[in-house]
């Protein structure tokens, strides 16, 4: 039993962190997801970790870092389908990244897909997450069957874990940037981080990160086990805690940054908006709490 990173995993984390720090600074992130970005990440192996011999725990570590850097794009979908693809679940009212991806998958009771070019509708000119373009769908059919309920379950489990890992990374980076701000921002002749009203908000960010990180690592390590008993419970817990960590830390970060937190210039809103978006992927915290209650009542 070991829920800490192995030496190899530390190297993996440091490697992806160095790559992202070098090539995915916020200036580039703010340009949004494009094919060059996909190719670069694909070449780095981000979407082929399992076929390259890594395990899901490794993939979670990589996606945690992608979340730290707020890298845009349907990265989780690309990793679980092996295609340049975005996905929808039961609701088809909005589709992400249609103009960049090859396919749009529907991961519901079964797995189906259609070429992205087959969807028509109205492109949102004001998407919630400015880095996630949205097509408001008028029509489109997920005609091609890709897999049965078993594949849908596998995609959902893996997608949930990677999404939670990404949310965890966002929650962590929101904490780092907010702590840095609280140490440097001076009011009443003191850094605002010296006031308990601020310190306690920041401590709560740490609490959410630590608990979510343990839950995400436990869920990812569980995916690597042949024994599936309790797996869906572990995964639901990870999604609840990481989703909340990202969203609540996003709101806390906005508050502590004061007026600057409400500006386009400061990165906080980009993280918070992505956190909200990811709450619509693989079950919101609320729906995952309902899943847990159903498991408890069964």
């Amino acid at each position, binding site marked *: 039993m070991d829920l800490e990173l192995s030496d190899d995993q530390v190297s993996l984390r440091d490697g992806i962190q160095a790559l992202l720090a070098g090539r995915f600074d916020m200036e580039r992130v703010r340009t949004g997801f494009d094919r060059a970005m996909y190719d670069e990440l694909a070449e780095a192996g981000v979407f082929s970790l399992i076929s390259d011999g890594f395990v899901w725990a490794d993939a979670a570590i990589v996606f945690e870092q992608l979340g730290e850097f707020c890298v845009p794009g349907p990265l989780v979908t690309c990793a679980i389908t092996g295609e340049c693809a975005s996905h929808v679940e039961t609701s088809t009212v909005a589709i992400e990244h249609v103009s960049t991806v090859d396919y749009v998958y529907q991961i519901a009771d079964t797995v189906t897909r259609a070429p992205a070019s087959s969807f028509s509708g109205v492109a949102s000119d004001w998407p919630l997450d400015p880095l996630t373009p949205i097509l408001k769908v008028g029509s489109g059919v997920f005609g091609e069957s890709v897999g049965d309920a078993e594949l849908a379950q596998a995609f959902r489990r893996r997608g949930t874990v990677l999404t939670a890992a990404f949310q965890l990374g966002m929650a962590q980076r929101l904490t780092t940037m907010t702590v840095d701000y609280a140490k440097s921002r001076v009011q009443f002749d003191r850094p605002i*981080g010296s006031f308990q009203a601020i310190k306690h908000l920041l401590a709560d960010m740490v609490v959410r990160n630590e608990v979510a990180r343990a839950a995400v690592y436990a869920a990812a390590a569980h995916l690597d086990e042949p024994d599936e008993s309790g797996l869906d419970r572990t995964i639901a817990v*990870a999604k609840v805690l990481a989703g909340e960590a990202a969203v609540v830390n996003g709101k806390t970060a906005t508050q502590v940054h004061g007026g600057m937190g409400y500006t386009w210039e400061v990165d906080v809103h980009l993280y918070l908006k992505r956190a909200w978006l990811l709450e619509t992927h693989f079950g919101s915290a609320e729906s995952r709490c309902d899943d847990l209650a159903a498991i408890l009542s069964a």
Partner: protein
Amino acid sequence: MELRYSEAEESFRATLREWLEHSLPAVPPQPSREDWVARRQWDADWQRRLFDGGYAGLNWPKEYGGQGATPTEQLIFFEETAKARAPYVGANFVGTLHAGPTLIEEGTGAQKAAHLPNILRGDEIWCQGFSEPGAGSDLAGLRTRADRDGDDYVLNGQKIWCSFGQIADVGEFLVRTDPDAPKNRGISWLILPMDLPGIEIRPIKTALGSSEFCEVFLTDVRVPVSQRVGAENDGWRVTNVTLKYERGTAFVSELIDSLRLCRDAAKLTSDAAHLRELGHCYAAFDGLWSLTKRNVSQTSRGTAGAGGMVIKLAYSEARQRFGELCLRMLERDGLHIEGNELVEERLRTLALTIAAGASQIQRNIISERVLGLPREPR
């Protein structure tokens, strides 16, 4: 990362389970809450069973009669005993988990010989005399005086929140031996036999109606200087040496118990809002259980993350949230405490965010030690 336990750990677990299966049927029913003599006996008997079974002092070094278990074995022990609903450490808490380890680290040969075997066998119950009416969150501001008189200290003052004070044989006491030194540098750690003349113990009735806490009044109590552990005025450091014995396992029993209570509570309601909140509580407890395992993993490697500081804060608040939910689910079925574990627990958990470091102090500690933010006045 790896969820599976090693073969040796699984074998430890299997042996323990077998021992519990064999031992638990012989444990008599738990005595009533206010029968302190019977409670002491019940807790001491369980400690004796652990001793005879080779499970006493699991985290103590072998040379002092302990088992020298690994952190993971310690985790498994707490997990399995909680799952089997074995007796909790109870009145043996201070002796086995705090005073004993302190003596191992800082005691003289004579002090160790006088107490460690007794603690392990359940023959000696300890209490803790740290907090005072004027020294709660600011513990280092304690004022109970120990004035040197020949080979004795003469103690005068008042202690509070002394668990099991009414049945304890011995206490670990923090006293002020240098009133002129900066406040955490004038404190000494004493072994105090609780039957000395001048010690008066008065139980405090809690909001639950129970009386596990006591006030201890000290009037001209003479204690030989040989009962001091560690150097004079070095007690603040001495009292912190036991942290390494906890090894991330402090809330294992509580978390296992909380997960069980969530499963029980699921049977109480079909209300969608209550069930959602229950799922939320379960997620919090299960996440903390994973964090506990992660802490133990880090301890096994000789490293430490922020997890240890987080668990107490997050657990106590999650447990209160769960207790509140239970009261709402039970509605008018929850208007009596007897036979209602969930109602009793709701009351008991009121203390969780206050005892052993109030949540506000925990947040100060996390923001200062983990995040490096400016320190509060000391």
